[in-house]
Every structure is written in C-alpha cells, then in structure tokens.
C-alpha cells in the first residue's frame, strides 16, 4: 500500500498516473508507521472530541411522541431537509419525485457524460474546472445550503427565522403569492396553463440552445463533436433543470411567484 502524494509538476500528471503502477519504490513510504500513526492521532483527537461532546451535551430528547399533536415545525431528518425545503418552491410531486429522480439519474450518468480524462487519481481544479464548479454548485450551493436553511432557519409554520429571532408559533406571514401567468394578466385557467407550459418549455429549449452556443464558443466545434449530441443533450437538460431550481427560487423571493405553470396534475 502506498499513499498518493501530490505530484510536483502538474504538466506530467497523466504520465505519472500511468507510470505509478510500475514506478520506482523510492517514491513510496511504509504504511506503518507513517500512515497508521497519523490515523491513530486523528483517532485520539476524535475520541477526545466525542468524550467532551457526550459529557457536555445531553441527548436532545423532547416530549414523548404524540400522534395527535405533531411538533411544529415537523422536520425530516437533517439529510432530507434540502428536499423538504424544496417543497416551499415546488409542487410536492415535482420537488419530491421529479427533481430527486433527476438528481439520482444525473449522478448515475456522470461517468458516461464525462469524457474529460484528466484528474484521475489526484486532485486538480485547473483540469476539471467545469465539472468541479458544476458539482459545487449543485451539491454545496443548492443541496447543502438548503439543508442548512431547513435545519437552522426554518421555524414553526416553516417560516423563516434568523438565528437571533425567537421562534414564534403565532408569526403571521402575508400570503400574496401569485402564478406567473397572473402576473402577465392572464386570468383564464386554460390559457394560464398553456402560457405556463410554453414558458417552461421555452426555458428548457432556450437554455439548452444557449448552452450549446456557449460550449461551442468556449471549447470549439471539434470538442462538441467529440462529446456527441446525446451526451450534450443529457448534460444540458440536467444542467438547465438544475438552474431552473435556482431561477424558481429567485422568482419566488423576488416576485412572489407561486407557480410558473399550474395544471390540475402538476405545478411547476
């Protein structure tokens, strides 16, 4: 076993990773004691932290569960709070089924749509700027921040409370959200749905076309050919949908838009 150590020269990375398997023995060190002692030290530090934590903080038990009187706010386990937070902005079907499906499918297709061979077995931002930034945006900005919001900033009635504000179960928030078609003066139910559908489809189409132009402008026609239309379509569809989540959140916060499209079956 050997620890991967950071290469001195970024330019030779691909070469190095290939060489590694047959490389000379003198760029390796022994697991014992070099790795194990560091791991053990970490272990000790974690132990100390755990001891202090467990002695200093009691289990956060609340009153006995009562099915007739559920807690307010009723929160999902922390790792699902991002999903629960999305319910603020979307139809439950969309936030709870469609978007999580996209996330799972998107994570599954990463190996197939990623044709960048660089960065295997070592860490390097320069070589995978686009991939890393996309992941950062999707995971850290969207997913993790939604968890933070859901955990720390949502109080009774799922209302927004800053950390210095007292959770007041009687807080009343004005309910003035409207649908996007309404903003454009459309009052008819049918035409509202049509309008919303057109806007939604247009958003996806324009987004994908724009992304195409952007990629070609950035990487050239040759890259696009190498990437292939199928990979591009999948990637751009997922990317545009991810951005759509952000756009919808902004629409809600800035313009009080409830839904872009409202139908009896699904709202977006």
């Amino acid at each position: 076993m050997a620890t991967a150590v950071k290469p001195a020269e970024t330019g030779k990375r691909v070469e190095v990773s290939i060489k590694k398997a047959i490389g000379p023995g003198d760029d390796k060190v022994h697991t014992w004691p070099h790795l194990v002692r560091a791991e053990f030290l970490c272990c000790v530090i974690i132990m100390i932290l755990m001891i202090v934590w467990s002695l200093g903080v009691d289990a956060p038990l609340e009153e006995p569960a009562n099915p007739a009187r559920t807690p307010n706010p009723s929160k999902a386990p922390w790792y699902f709070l991002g999903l629960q937070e999305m319910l603020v902005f979307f139809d439950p079907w969309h936030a709870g089924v469609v978007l999580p499906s996209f996330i799972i499918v998107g994570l599954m297709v990463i190996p197939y749509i990623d044709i960048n061979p660089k960065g295997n077995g070592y860490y390097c931002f320069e070589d995978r700027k686009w991939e890393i930034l996309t992941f950062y945006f999707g995971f850290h900005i969207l997913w993790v921040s939604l968890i933070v919001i859901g955990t720390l900033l949502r109080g009774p009635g799922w209302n927004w409370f800053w950390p210095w504000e007292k959770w007041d179960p009687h807080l009343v928030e004005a309910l003035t959200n409207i649908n996007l078609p309404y903003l454009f003066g459309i009052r008819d139910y049918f035409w509202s749905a049509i309008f919303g559908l057109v806007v939604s489809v247009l958003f996806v189409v324009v987004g994908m076309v724009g992304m195409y132009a952007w990629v070609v402008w950035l990487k050239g026609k040759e890259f696009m050919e190498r990437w292939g239309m199928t990979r591009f379509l999948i990637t751009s569809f997922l990317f545009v949908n991810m951005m759509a989540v952000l756009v919808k959140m902004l629409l809600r916060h800035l313009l009080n838009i409830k839904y872009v499209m409202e139908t009896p079956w699904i709202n977006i």
Partner: protein
Amino acid sequence: MARRDLNLDDEKRSYAGLWLLGATLLVLGAIWAILDDSFLRRPWKQYQHGFYDIEHEREHAKLEAEEKKLNDDPKYVELRKQLDAAKESQASGETASKLADAEKRIAVAKLDEGEADLNVRFVKSELEAAWYQYDHALETGGNVSAAQKQRDELIAQKGEREKEWQTTLDAVARIQAEMDELQAPVKTLEKQLEEHEAERALIQNRLDGMKSIVANVEMDRIATIQQIVLPDFDTNNFEQPVDRVDRCTSCHVGIDKSGFEDVAQPWTTHPKRDPLLTKHPPDQFGCTPCHDGQGVALNSIKQAHGDVRFWLQPLLQGDQMQSRCLDCHRDVSTIGDAPSLAKGEYLFEQLGCHGCHLVSDYDGLGDVGPSLRRISAKVDPQWMVGWIHDPYAFRPRTKMPNFEFSDAQAKAAAAYLWTSSKEDGAGWLASHPDPGGIDPADAAQVAKGKELFDEVGCRACHAAVEGEVATPVGANKDYAPNLARIGEKTTGQFIYWWIKDPRGYNPESRMPSLRLTDDEARAITAYLLSLSSAAPAAEQTITSADLESPELAKEGEAVVRKYGCYGCHSINGMDAESRIGVELSSFATKPLEELYFGNHPEIPRNWNAWTFHKLQDPRIYATEHVEQLMPNFHLADEDIENLRVWLQSRRGYQPPLRYRADGYDGRQERIQKGRRIVERYNCMGCHQIDGRGGYIRTLYQDNPTSAPPILNGEGAKVQPEWFFGFLQDPARQPLRFWLDIRMPTFGLEDHETTAIVDYFTALAELEDPYFYWDPKIDSNPELLQVGEMLMSDDYFSCWSCHVRGNETPGGPMEQWAPNLAYAHERLNPVWILSWIKDPQAMMPGTKMPAFYPGGPPDVLGGDESKQIVAMRDYIMSLGNAAGVAVAAEALAPADAAPVDPNAPRPPAEAKAPGADDRRAAASGAAGS
C-alpha cells in the same frame, strides 16, 4: 523521468508533543467521566448520605439516652451487680469445681450418646435393605424365608439399640439438669436484665441495620436509587399501557418516616403523612400521581421536579396539588384534603360554566339560569334592557355575568327575548290573573309577609336585604337572587303566582313550592313589593312596544346566538343550539403555544398566569382584531384560584381503575350524582349534610331546635323507601308539625329522588340499605311488652316528649319530639339501637337524653342491650299494620293521619298557645 518529490523529513517528524497532549486529554476525559458519573450528575447520592447521617445520629442519640436511662435506673444497676456477683460465685469455689466436673462428664456422656445414635441409624438402614430383600424375594420367587428371618432379626436388634440410645440420652439429660441447677441464678438474672434492655436491643438492631455489608466488610450504607414502579399506571400516546417509575425517594428518603418533621428538605417527613401517606402508601401509589414532576429524573433538582423544557407536568405547587385528587376520587367534596378543588368544582357547576364549555363528566348538569320562555310575562321591559346591559348594577352578587354589551346590543337582545316569549307569556298571564288583595302599603299584611318570609324557609336561599347573604356561591355570588329590589323587576301578580307554584310558570324551576295558602302568598308578595316601594320609580324610557320591533328582534337573535345566552337559559327558538365555548375536558394539558396572550407582554408566559387573567377578565386577550366573547363574572381572586385548581384537574386521562379510589364506579358515582342534585336544589341551604351547609341555621342561633334537622348520617338513619316517598311529598307525614319552617315540595323527577336517596345511603357507606321488618317474625310479644314498659312513665317517660300517633306529649311543646308512630316505616332498626344507646355520639347537642349505661337492673336481668332491643322492637311495632296486639291496642292506626298534610300546624295551634315558644320545640327533632 523525474522522481516525485518525497519529503522524508515530513515522515520523520516526531509527534511526541501531540501524543502527550492527546494522552493527557484522554486521561482527563476519563477522570471527568468518572466524576460526572459518580458525583456531578448524582446529587441524590449526597442527599441520601445526608439523610443517613441524620438518621444514624438520631438513632445513636437514642441509644445513648437509653443507656443513660438504664444506668440511672437503680433497679437495673442492682440487677447488674447481682449478676456480676452470681457469675463470680459460679466461677469460684465449690460451684466452679462442680461445674467443671459436670462439663467433663457431659462431654463423655455426649460421646456415648453419639455412638449409640449412630448404631440406631445403621440398624435402621440395614432394616430398610432387609425389607427390600424380602419384597424382592416375594416378587422374584427367591428365598423368602431367609429374607424374612434376617428382617425379623434386624427388627429385634433395632429395638435393643434404641433402648441403649435412650439410656445414653437420659444420662446426658441428668448431667444437664445438674448443670442447669448450678447455673440457675445467673440465667434468671440474665433473663431479667434482657427484659430491661429490650428497648436498647431494638435500637441497637436498628443501628446495625444502618450499615451495608459488602464481602463481610461493614461500611456506611451505600446510596442506591430508590424506585417505586407502578405497573401500567400510564397510557402512552399510542394507547399502550406503560409503567410509571418514581425515584423521588432517592433524595426524599425520610418522606414516609416519622420523626423527621423538623429537618430540612429533601429529608423532611411528609407534612400530611397521616392521612395522605397512610391512605396512599408510597409503594403502591408513588409520588408523581399526586405531585407531578419528572419522577424518573435524578440528575438535578430542576430535572427531577420536571422544571425543564419538554417535560409537560412540572411539580405542582401549593393548592394545585389538590387537582390530582379528581383523577382517582370521583367526589372530592367528601375528602377533606382538597378544599380548594372542591370549591372550584362547586363554582364550575353553580356558575353554569358547563352551559358554554363542554367538559366530559360534567355535562347534563342542567341550566343554571331561569327559563326565558315566558319572560315577557315576568319582567319590566326597561328593567330587562338594563339587566342585560349590566346585571351587577342591579344585583352585585348575581351569578349572571356581564357581557359588556353596548346599549344597542342589550336592547336588541331584550327585544328578541321579549318577542320570542310574547305568546307563551301572554297565555300564562291570562290563566293567572291578578289575585287582588295585595297591598304593599298595608303594614299588617307586610308584617305578616315578613314573618312568613322569615319563618317558612325562603331565607335558606334568598336574602331580602341588600348586603345580606343566604346561601353563598364562592366569595361574592349568591345561590339565589337577593330580593331587596324585586319590585323594580316584576309585578305583584307574577310574584303571587310564582311563589305559589314555581313550576306552573317554569316546569324546570329549581324553586320549590312551600305550599303557601292564598293569603300567605298575598302577604309575602306584599312584603317583597314593599321592600322596593321606597325606591324612586325609574323614568320609563323603554316600553314593551319598543321591544316588539321585528327588526330589533332579528338583530337581537344574532346577539343571543353569538353570545350563547341559551347556555344558561331556556329560550324559545334556541333549542337546537350547541355550546359556544371551547371544550375544557383536557384544558390543563394545553401547551403554551395554544394559549393566546393578546397584547399583554406583562403577563408571564405560563398556563397558570394565562388562566388566572382569563378568569379575572375574560376578554383580556382580545385585541383590535381578535374578538373574545366570554362574559365577565367578576370573580374574587380566591374563587379564581379555586377554579384554576379545578381546571388543572382537567387532563383528559386517568389512571387505570385499580389505582382509583374504592367504589369509583359504585358508591362514589352515587355520591357525585346525588350531590349534584342536592346542590342544584340547595338542600344545604337548610340542612347540614355531611358536615357542610345548613346556612339557614345562622338565623336559629338562639333556638337551634327550631331549625331544619341536620342530616349528617341520614342515610343510615332512615329507610330508603320512606325517604323516597318523603322527598316526593314531604307534606304526606307531618313529622315535626310544630316547626314553622317547612320542608318544601320540589316536584322532583323520580330519577332525581332516587339519586338523592342513593346519595345518602352511599354517604353512610351502607351496603344494604333495604330490609323488611315484620314484628311477628322479627320480635316476640314478651319483648314488646318489656319495650312498652321501658318507654312508659314508669321508666324512661319517652312519651313526655315524643308524639305517639295522634297522642301528643304531656310535656311542654318546646319539648316535643318526632312522632314515633312513623318510626316503623321511617327508621332503620339498626340505627335505632345505636341511637338509644348513645344519642350524643350520633348527634352532638341533641335533646334526646342518654339512658345508657345505667338501664334498670330489674328488667331483663339488667341486660342493657336486650333492653334496647326491646324498646326498638316496640317502636318498630307502633302503628305497624302487621304489629302485634299489644301495639295495636296502645295506638291509633298510623293511617288515621292526625293532621292535614296541607296545613302543617293545626294541632300545634289547637294545643299550644305560645307560638313564639314553639321554636324551641324540636331538639329531639334534630335528633330523630
């Protein structure tokens, strides 16, 4: 190809400093954990040790005191000296050598005895084997005769050896007797000393018990968690039974030990150990069922007392502890230790809170306000508007709350009530015309009315002077209206017909009929009207015509509906309405976030404060846009606190039946049901029942014998069948016809009467209140003759006070006592026995003389209990249709009623001229 950089210096760096720091912190962490686990989070250990120290110290002091007492006792010191002397003489001289010799001999004799015993056991064992061989030979066809021979030999041998053994035993016993004789003086003295030292041994025993022994090492008691488990006491939120675990006694070690009343908490003895803990042993009932708090918690006082977030039942403080009594006791009025709770419950029932608020177990109590179905026939229209606007302005102690209506709302509500009752009211008026002859200006009539009002019993419920109180409800309410200003409210015509027959006007009225004659009713009406005749007549600004406007009535209907007037009053057109208030069945468990505090930041955020202010000013939490409807009852602070204690009892759940009081669904239920009726009709206005009430007695302080009888223990005294009939028609039997005050006719429903009878028998804890008495079977003629003789003037002169059929006593009227011709159907024969035996014990202050002990020695061989039985049997035969000849001859039959039930006093009037003296009459009345 370039080699990758490998900084071996990094790998060679020493982490010793980090290791040392880590190891130190780990050790510190371990020490902290031990401290935390043993001391920091175990404050109960210190408390328990603290108590053990006190206990040990006290026991030790007792031991020292006892020792001092013994040493100061000359008898004990003398005994000790004698013992020492005896021991000395036993250990020296001839006795000592004799003893030493005997000891030697007994050792030898015991050896012989042991050997002989062993021989016996061996031969017994061999015999068992021989028996087996013999049986085996029979079974298998072997040599039976040989086996039989051996067996018989062994039997013989066993007899011999047993004889030898007995000889050795005798030898030992002989020597032992010798020794006993030599040691006798010492032993006797030792025994005497032991008697003296018994108390000290007891204390020493207790002291020895205050030690823990671990692996043979004696040490101070080790503190252990003391825990009481109540199986299945609770039901969790998923309907599963769960145990309740209380560890309170881990700190409150002395709570159930007497002698620690003076020490500080947490060691003190329960302040009401007797009766609270004797009736609720902690090992069966724990602590938190009464006190609340977090019984399992031990980490800190705050946690144990449940004074932490998320623990829903923190320790109850002060009177609030009483609230838990209702969990297991259905009727708290009969348990003395919950006065605040009982008063709160009474207020809830009497003020009519149940009219608007549904509370399980408190529905079906009936309206507290009068029926308004014929109100237009009763009141003055202007008065009605003013009354609805502010009842307290007219009658400060009324139970009717102030709805804080605007003038327009009050007038509209009045208009609806007026128009909706117009038809019924007019019909009633037409059939009850002005009787005429009522003149409040006629001084004689008014004086007669006042006399009647004071005498016949009106004042049990009603006062007629402002500021006077008849039967109070709480601190500032009256059970029934004060009549000082009645003339401003209604007419003589109404009062006349109303007092003659209240149920003729309102079939559900609580007001009973006092069986007034026309003239009596006229006089009382004149008196009542005269009370307010001096008041200046109000300027008539609102007439009945004003209230008959349909638009106004429509507006008023909305007001009546919104404010739920029908919660307390029967109102035409409002029969289908339901309660407007919040259900209170589990009000005590309301979480803080469900309590709305309006714009009142100054009110502390807790249930107690919310409830107090709500009751003090029911609309306090209203804001400019949150409306509240509850009217203001102007309750006194103590009433609010009592009501709050009762509200605290509304948890919506109870422990399982087996934890509740005996008879929860039997006797207690009967008491609860009956008490509600007894209180609804205010029986306690006249009668003291179970030690409570009897308010009218304040008017009879000079002559208590003229007051209505005290009914403590009435259930054991009277027969249920008689009681039922009496309540249905009290005038049927003129039991105490010389009294001025009248037992009213309530016109009770049968089920109400039954409930009252059951109430009294349940209070008396009678298992079987019913019986059948037949003089022919239950008694004999000789005994009856003895009884008659004993009661005659030759012995106890019973008839000098007691009325017998239509035979009034020879003595003065103020000595008269109840008619014993009714006893056979009225009195419980068992009760009569104890009554004759000791009347004062049954009813302190009774005029009935006590004849026992001290009965005549010449009757029935002086057997007192037999004499009492004879009199009882005689009393039971009086007027009894099935009675034997001796009784029948002596008396007029009971059904030849001596008086007209409708006119309770004629015989008295016929016979006794001194009407004023009559008040003193019936002390025996109180007695029988």
